[in-house]
């Protein structure tokens, strides 16, 4: 990196807002995925104007820029794959406006997801998208990845709750798209930018919808002696067109790992549990709960517990939301997948994952948003063992190929990043990818924004390749 650029950045941001020492940069070479990439310099803008000046400096020196929130992403989206500037939004963390009458909030990208809800729940509102990392992940990251979460089954994902953005374009121009209002004339740029993984523009302000808190909530824990019975339950709940607010699956292995840490009260001897929540008007919550319990029993649930109070409910959710942290206690490294399948294919797909795990010699844990058909198989491996790493990646590739074969998607909420960029040809033809490249060219012609993401590196052959190793030289752990 040109020391002149670092000096320039220091001049207008101040020295404490620019990190370039090796030991500092190492803090920013990871996110929640298994990828690693070290930036050349890390900057902390405080204002949109800071962002503009950073972008202008990057343009002058022709270096890449990658945005980053809390670094909780699961696809390498917030890693500087090709080095350059990593722009961390932790100091742009103000809630700028809360407009309860119109159910909107305007926030800076560094605001933590849960803090929006915390700011409005006293008045009976919440911000609906709830990634499991919501206590630390930021809204800017949610927008970039179009994040989901357990309750998006009923309430929709991030894109359904964002009405407007302020962005800085790669040229340094500040632009507002959408707004607090709906149906802005012209192309839906807000809809395009949400989920574009920081490759089209840098988000500096987000206008979100606030949702009315439901008056009643009921949380059920259905306990099973077989994985099949649990997945059949989910398929049947969907087929009956019951839409719970959330419907989460956890297999026996995962729940034992979680229980050992969180003590949520999960039954240790079960093969699988479903954590199901219904909310809304009390009349509909009661009726739905009755029907769901009936479906669980029909599918041989050993037991269906109903959380007695908010405390019990919070404990059940604490287990679910901290599951990945719990897994981290038992394995040096793990690889989380994000494939989506039609809900009718859940039982068969879980059997396939089991077979793939055995074939490659891995324990694969399953904890996922079952109601959406959004799988999160967790492959445990030791990254110091090159052979294991390669087998983990190969096993993941097979799982993904199966998801696509049954009509699914390679990612439901984590994003493509560079973790899944080589898998894109599984879902999209060269013509589809070309259309996406044209979109990128229309907004980010020089390609300096978050390069190396979404698109496969090897262009044109359309065949499935094993994902390459991280391009930086550092070795995990």
């Amino acid at each position, binding site marked *: 990196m040109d020391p002149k650029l670092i000096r320039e950045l220091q001049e207008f941001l101040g020295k404490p807002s620019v990190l370039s020492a090796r030991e500092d940069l190492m803090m920013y070479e990871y996110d929640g995925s298994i990828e690693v990439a070290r930036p050349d310099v890390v900057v902390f803008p405080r204002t949109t104007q800071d962002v503009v000046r950073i972008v202008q400096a990057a343009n002058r020196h022709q270096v890449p820029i990658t945005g980053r929130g809390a670094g909780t992403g699961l696809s390498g989206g917030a890693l500087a794959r090709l080095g350059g500037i990593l722009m961390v939004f932790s100091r742009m963390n103000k809630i700028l406006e809360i407009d309860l009458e119109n159910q909107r909030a305007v926030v800076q990208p560094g605001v933590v997801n849960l803090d929006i809800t915390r700011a409005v729940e006293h008045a009976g509102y919440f911000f609906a998208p709830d990634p499991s990392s919501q206590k630390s992940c930021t809204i800017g990251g949610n927008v970039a990845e179009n994040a989901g979460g357990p309750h998006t089954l009923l309430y929709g994902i991030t894109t*359904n709750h964002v009405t407007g953005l302020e962005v800085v374009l790669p040229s340094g121009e500040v632009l507002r798209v959408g707004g607090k209002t709906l149906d802005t004339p*012209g192309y839906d*740029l807000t809809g395009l930018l949400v989920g574009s993984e920081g490759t089209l523009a840098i988000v500096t302000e987000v206008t979100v919808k606030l949702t009315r808190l439901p008056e009643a909530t009921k949380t059920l824990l259905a306990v099973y002696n077989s994985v099949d019975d649990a997945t059949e339950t989910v398929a049947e709940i969907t087929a009956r*067109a019951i839409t719970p607010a959330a419907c989460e699956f956890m297999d026996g292995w995962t729940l034992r790992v979680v229980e050992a840490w969180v003590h949520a009260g999960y039954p240790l001897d079960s093969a699988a549990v479903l954590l199901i929540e219904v909310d809304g008007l009390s009349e509909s919550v009661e009726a739905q709960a009755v029907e769901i319990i009936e479906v669980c029993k029909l599918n041989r649930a050993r037991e269906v517990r109903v959380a007695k109070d908010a405390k019990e409910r919070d404990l059940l959710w604490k287990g679910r939301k901290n599951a990945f942290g719990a897994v981290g206690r038992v394995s040096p490294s793990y690889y989380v997948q994000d494939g989506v399948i039609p809900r009718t294919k859940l039982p068969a797909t879980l059997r396939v994952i089991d077979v793939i795990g055995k074939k490659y010699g891995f324990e694969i844990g399953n904890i996922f*948003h079952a109601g959406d058909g959004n799988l999160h198989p967790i492959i445990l491996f030791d990254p110091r063992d090159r052979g294991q790493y390669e087998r983990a990646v190969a096993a993941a590739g097979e799982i993904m190929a199966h998801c696509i074969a049954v009509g699914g998607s390679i990612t439901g909420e984590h994003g493509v990043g560079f973790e899944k960029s080589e898998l*894109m040809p599984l879902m999209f033809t060269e013509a589809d990818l070309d259309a996406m490249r044209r979109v990128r060219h229309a907004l980010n012609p020089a390609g300096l924004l978050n390069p190396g993401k*979404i698109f496969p590196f090897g262009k044109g052959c359309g065949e499935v390749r094993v994902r390459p190793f991280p391009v930086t030289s550092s070795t995990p752990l």
Partner: protein
Amino acid sequence: MSPLQDATLAKLEALVDAGNFFTDAENLARCTIDGCAPRAAVQANTVEQVVEVVRFAAAENLAVVPYGNFQQMGLGAPPAQYDIALRIGLDRVISYDPRDLTLSVEAGIQLNDLNQQLREQRQFLPLDSHLGGFATIGGILATNSSGPLRHAFGTARDFLLGLEFVTGEGVRTKSGGRVVKSVAGYDIHKLMIGSLGTLGIITSANFRTFPLPPVTATYLARFATLDDALAFRRAMAASTLQPRALDILSPDAARLLNSLAPAGAREISEKEILQIVESETQARSERGEANSFAMTIRTPSPGFSEKEWTVLVGTGGNEQVVERHRRELEPMAHAARATAFDQARPQQPLFARISEDDCMEWSYVRTFSSVAFHLKPAAAAMKISVLPGQFSEFLKAAQGIAEQHELASAALLRAAGVIYLALVPSSPEEAPRKRLAQACNDIFAAAQLAGGTAAIEFCPAALKREINVWGPPRADLALMRNLKNEFDPRGILSPGRFYGGI
């Protein structure tokens, strides 16, 4: 002026199925947009035919305007060039997995036909169009048409999972997926929604479907003033009630909708309708004609109050949920000084079979914009995006603007944040039209002042020459132009019809 020579036409004819190529005056007149007729009209019945027609047009520099069922041809600015009207005849259900609540359909299928199939599984697609169910899926998506149900279900962008489309270079392309959740790649399908055929031609779409509520009921509350009606809206928003639809009708809008039913029209029972159908069927079979025919039935007048503001509240769910709404809405309405609170009469069974609306009132209200323009062809029907908190202030400003320019006005307010406003001049003469143009410009400014946007949905072609129907362009136009150039580099897809002259 005409770039179409006979030899060129012959080549175009060869690209589609026999009998799907038209150059006769009657067929071209049906495709006329604001007085511009195409040189030829063709119907494509496969994606390959769409691809071929677009490639041909690109090579010959001919402008193509896609359409579905002629429902919304008047939207947007007049085309800058218009050579080929391309009807999307693809109308199959590609796949429907009711147990997964997902659906993939071709773009030319009519919403009514589709919902009829979904209804067998007690499901539906809340792709509410202001035209009712005669619009095609592709047409509804390309115009981002929405209706009362957006209150609970949002608009197409909220439940469209993926799209297939043909670009301006004739490349078959898709984005999104078929499952209920996918974030792989850019959401190009969101760009296509409302793009009015300027970025690509939609050939198929994937959606999530929704369960039909077991019970629905609609309540009508009447108020002496807009502010009372809005107080009722505020009380509902502050409660935990979950209405499916929430619209507010001005007294003038009520008068317009009431007048759609001709004076002296009598109510006709379902039995009588079936008798007419039977005798007509018999007569046709005696004459040796085909047994399928279309019949227009005018529903009776909705009988909206023409002196008061009417709030329509749609509810749905199990019986207890619907009953709970009734129980709580009535006192809530009276607390906001309602002068009346009634349950709407359920739709006659005959209509219930072809309409998702549970009462006749919705069928009228959803058509407000197009009805206003149909009844008052000199009028401008505008769509204004403002938030409910600004409704009162904005509407008062709008009424002031109308009065200042000697125009009548009528409004439908959709609580999600949209106002449909009809501005009606006293006559179609030039002087009133000038005043109408000025009023529209004032409304654009007032919408901007209220933090929103506005566009003209329907107005006389003459007015479109004087005013930009999409309102003054904003700073976001440059990016949109870049996107247009990437997808349609030759500018042959619906040129000039969209925002900022795209």
